[in-house]
């Protein structure tokens, strides 16, 4: 059945991807029998004349239970509604609602129930008086129940979208469209102030914000009974979201100060979990993703890997091996036995290319078939859009979502969601090992190529010139802001 799905107008690329993942999570696409798992996706339609970035979409879901489960677990779905009518004028809306079958309407209008009608205009604020007038205009619907604004049994929404003349940076609307529907479910946005970073006990410079962490956990299908791993755990911000949804969590980091010590006995990764009453991670360890400590036979143990690898812009990655050793400045040396106990191994810079290679290799080996790899990948922006990008690929994985979040005029980060579709074979393992050795031998080359840091932070001579021009010929109206929300 077709439902109206209204999104929050933010993180545009992430919205449908979240609904698709949640549909998978709740079993909309049928039993996991292995075949056809990768090609299942939902049917979507845009309302007439609507811009693709509009918050209003129609989605086809098998039942109201699925619609409710998906909406309630989501972060970006403002509401999913059973549409009782739509039109480009209030007369057309009335006609449409009258035509909607009685057997779908009457059960929700009966005298024993309570209800509420919410009036919402996308792109404009309307006065309390105007809202009341519109509600009165719905008198032709035979509401028999009592009104309850606090906690009604049924919540009806009258939504309008129109070209209000002012250019507010929202997606352009060609023609007015009005919708009336019964709310089936919606995101629990109260999660965000509960888990917000502002009040978190232990923070780090690259801690993932709560909203994004929940989106990542949804993309990874985190549910009770699953084991989720973060190889760059830091302060545990991503695992918190996975633990909230009931998954068992495990994390590693190369920086022992972050993972073991934190800032004290009451200010560390464990205290973060304690703060929210969440079960502690199953394991935290200090390990190098470049030379992981897993036993050779171990594979297909994680249901998902969710992480935000270091891109080298705000936080650089590190890997094992002396920095000078790898560059060839110093000859190979042995650590004297008496110094071994307290020896702190030196680490070397870890380029993004090698980091992503190691992550894909780890994921290919350690994720179960059908499991998910969800991670952020940084991209440089050219002229306001991200070009046809070559995202990292691996024969064991299929990319099913790429959602961009603009961070600055220079670069964005893209959340990649991949599903494991093939086993980790001998050939793949050997190829990875060869690549690993190649990285070691060409250490210096990889540090320079694709160095994101300089591209992001270089002085903006060309940028300043361009800005100067536009301030002279400033357009009177701001154009559609697109994905800058």
């Amino acid at each position, binding site marked *: 059945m077709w439902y109206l799905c209204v999104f929050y107008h933010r993180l545009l690329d992430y919205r449908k991807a979240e609904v698709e993942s949640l549909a998978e999570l709740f079993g909309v696409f049928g039993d996991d029998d292995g075949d056809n798992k990768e090609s299942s996706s939902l049917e979507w339609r845009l309302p007439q004349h609507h811009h693709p970035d509009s918050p209003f979409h129609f989605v086809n879901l098998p039942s109201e239970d699925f619609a409710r489960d998906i909406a309630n677990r989501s972060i970006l779905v403002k509401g999913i509604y059973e549409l009782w009518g739509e039109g480009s004028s209030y007369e057309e809306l009335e006609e449409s609602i009258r035509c909607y079958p009685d057997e779908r309407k009457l059960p929700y209008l009966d005298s024993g129930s309570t209800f509420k009608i919410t009036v919402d205009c996308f792109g404009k604020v309307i006065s309390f008086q105007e809202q009341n007038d519109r509600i009165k205009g719905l008198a032709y619907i035979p509401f028999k129940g009592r009104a309850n604004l606090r906690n009604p049994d049924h919540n009806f929404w009258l939504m309008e979208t129109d070209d209000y003349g002012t250019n507010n940076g929202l997606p352009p609307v060609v023609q007015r469209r009005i919708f009336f529907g019964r709310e089936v479910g919606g995101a629990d946005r109260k999660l965000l102030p509960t888990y917000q970073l502002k009040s978190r006990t232990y923070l780090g410079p690259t801690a993932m914000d709560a909203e994004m962490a929940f989106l990542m956990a949804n993309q990874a299908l985190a549910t009770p009974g*699953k084991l989720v791993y973060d190889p760059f755990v830091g302060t545990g911000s991503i695992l918190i979201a996975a633990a909230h949804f009931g998954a068992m969590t495990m994390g590693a980091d190369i920086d022992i100060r972050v993972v073991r010590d934190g800032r004290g006995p009451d200010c560390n990764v464990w205290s973060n979990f304690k703060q929210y009453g969440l079960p502690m991670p199953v394991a935290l*360890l*200090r390990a190098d993703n470049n030379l992981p400590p897993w036993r050779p036979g171990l594979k297909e143990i994680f249901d998902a890997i969710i992480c935000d690898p270091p891109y080298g812009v705000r936080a650089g990655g590190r890997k094992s091996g002396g920095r000078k050793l790898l560059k060839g400045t110093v000859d190979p040396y042995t650590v004297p036995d008496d110094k071994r106990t307290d020896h702190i*191994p030196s680490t070397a810079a870890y380029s993004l290319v090698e980091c992503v290679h190691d992550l894909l290799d780890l994921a290919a080996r350690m994720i179960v078939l059908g499991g998910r790899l969800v991670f952020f990948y940084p991209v440089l922006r050219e002229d306001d859009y991200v070009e046809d990008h070559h995202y990292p690929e691996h024969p064991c994985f299929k990319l099913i979502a790429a959602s961009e979040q603009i961070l600055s005029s220079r670069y964005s980060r893209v959340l990649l969601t991949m599903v494991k579709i093939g086993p980790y074979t001998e050939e793949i393992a050997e190829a990875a090992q060869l690549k690993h050795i190649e990285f070691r031998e060409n250490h210096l080359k990889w540090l320079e190529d694709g160095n994101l840091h300089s591209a992001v932070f270089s002085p903006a001579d060309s940028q300043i010139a361009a800005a100067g021009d536009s301030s002279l010929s400033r357009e009177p109206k701001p154009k559609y802001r697109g994905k800058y929300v």
Partner: protein
Amino acid sequence: MRLLTHNMLSSNIKGVANGFPLRIEVEKVVEKKVDLNAGFLRNIFPKIEWKAFAEAARTLGYAELPEDADSSFLDSDDFLDKFHHALLELHLEEGALICPETGRRFPVNKGIPNMLLHEDEV
């Protein structure tokens, strides 16, 4: 560090043929209660190297696990309880993991094992 973690780790020092399982040097063991999740236990059971697991549990002072186990044991609640206890409720807070071939110590402090290799082990 729980025994689930211990069961996944090995010494990957250059030149070592078989670094699993790591021997455990115990200094401090703590028991912390965790809610039992049967679904999780059933999923993880096939991934566990049982002999190493049972041996490690004995080192930590828990001798209730059978020497061998197969998936039919998972039907028994009593077995699930013991499995759960050994896998997730026993913690090595302080101690070390020892490479079976070279004797190199990987310290465990505040429950966190430090598996980073030195420059000459890489």
